[in-house]
């Protein structure tokens, strides 16, 4: 008695729901959405849904819509045609000569699509229920400006390095003979060099020691460097930066920084 009453109640609700569906047809996002809503009236796990029953529900819905002269979009009608086809496949015994997928396969795929759509809707709901930036958690309100610096990075490979070295070390091997100007130190160079060094030598220092490294051994370079350094020393003495002395003829020439007149 109670059961029967409940059943009647459910039927009424289902019918009301179905009518509400028709009125709300614009609210559906296409036939799949509608099918999903209809499938809920079966009140079973989507995996156990009866596709045949669902097809009937859908076709019934389309029928009623027609009666109410509700114009359905083309895709609803395409779906109806397809479901009618599916229904016939499911009801008729399989014809072995017929090609293509069986009714069960098609039904299983439809069930899968519905389950997948539902799963995505649930996932979307869970996503939106998460704590969200700007609503539940917040970023730094006063970010500090980061100044941008353009840095130039120089690239060189190991090969570049080795080739450069190889080039330098083997240059002599293929160099045609010319007058070697490598052996000449200009007075300007000597002057610049001495200016930089004079501060380091506190006391009297032989002029010879100011010759650039590597210029002391080769006679040609030594001559050039000595002459240039001597000229440079005279120039510095003239400018009042250094003092020069020589103990006796041919004795080493010595120089030292002139004491600061203030100190």
């Amino acid at each position: 008695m109670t059961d029967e009453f409940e059943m009647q109640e459910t039927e009424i609700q289902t019918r009301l729901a179905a009518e509400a569906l028709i009125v709300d047809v614009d609210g559906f996002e296409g036939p799949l959405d509608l099918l999903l809503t209809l499938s809920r009236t079966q009140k079973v796990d989507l995996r156990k849904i009866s596709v045949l029953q669902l097809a009937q529900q859908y076709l019934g819905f389309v029928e009623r819509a027609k009666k109410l002269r509700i114009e359905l979009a083309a895709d609803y009608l395409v779906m109806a045609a397809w479901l009618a086809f599916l229904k016939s496949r499911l009801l008729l015994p399989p014809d072995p000569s017929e090609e293509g997928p069986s009714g069960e396969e098609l039904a299983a795929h439809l069930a899968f699509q519905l389950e997948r759509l539902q799963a995505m809707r649930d996932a979307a709901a869970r996503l939106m229920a998460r704590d969200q930036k700007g609503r539940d958690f917040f970023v730094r309100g006063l970010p500090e400006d980061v100044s941008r610096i353009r840095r130039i990075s120089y690239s060189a490979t190991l090969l570049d390095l080795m080739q450069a070295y190889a080039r330098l070390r083997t240059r002599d091997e293929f160099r045609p003979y010319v007058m070697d100007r490598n052996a000449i130190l200009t007075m300007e160079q000597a002057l610049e060099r001495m200016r930089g060094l004079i501060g380091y030598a506190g006391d009297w220092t032989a002029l010879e020691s100011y010759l650039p490294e590597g210029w002391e051994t080769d006679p040609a370079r030594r001559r050039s460097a000595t002459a240039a350094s001597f000229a440079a020393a005279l120039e510095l003495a003239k400018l009042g930066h250094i003092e020069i002395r020589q103990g006796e003829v041919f004795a080493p020439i010595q120089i030292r920084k002139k004491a600061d007149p203030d100190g």
Partner: protein
Amino acid sequence: MADSKPDDAESLFEAPPMGEQERMCEAILFASADPVTVRELESRLPHGCDVAEALVHLRKRYEGRGVRLVRVGDAWAMRTAPDLGFLMQKETVETRKLSRAAIETLAIIAYHQPATRAEIEEIRGVSVSRGTVDQLLELEWIRFGRRRMTPGRPVTYVVTQEFLDHFGLENARDLPGLKELRAAGLLDNRPPPGAMQGPDDQGEEEEVIGQSELFED
């Protein structure tokens, strides 16, 4: 700045102590509203710093505090603790309400990425309007992924770091229920059986490209 000079010079060979590295990361992360990648932290800290370790310490330090260190993809950011959101009415940004289509499209891209438009349409059973995708692109929650190597070479969509940041996700693998959905086969790209077009046939709307995409992938 002057104080840091000697450190800088030495750092070629020796990094500053871990405590110092930690506060350097802290300063940089505090100063930025956007997540900062590990790579950028490394480039901004003195040479030889162990950013990964410094971040572990820092994260621990902020556990249970009013702000916390969160991971966003391969980047890190400081964010207020979500349970204190109620204090922030003033900072709350009113976001445009997203349509159901946009939310579902977003979820489909997030769970199926990289996803083509045809795949989104296949799942939703309706065509995706241009505005929906545009809105998600504008929010910087999705971006273009690589083209699918199928006929027509359709573009794909993937979710962004901003998406992860917005929803407080460490990475896309942390999406709620992802494992279960995958285990249930609901993330499979299952083509309709046979050569028949499935019930999702959208008539003119489903382009040949989209269909072939579904069949061949």
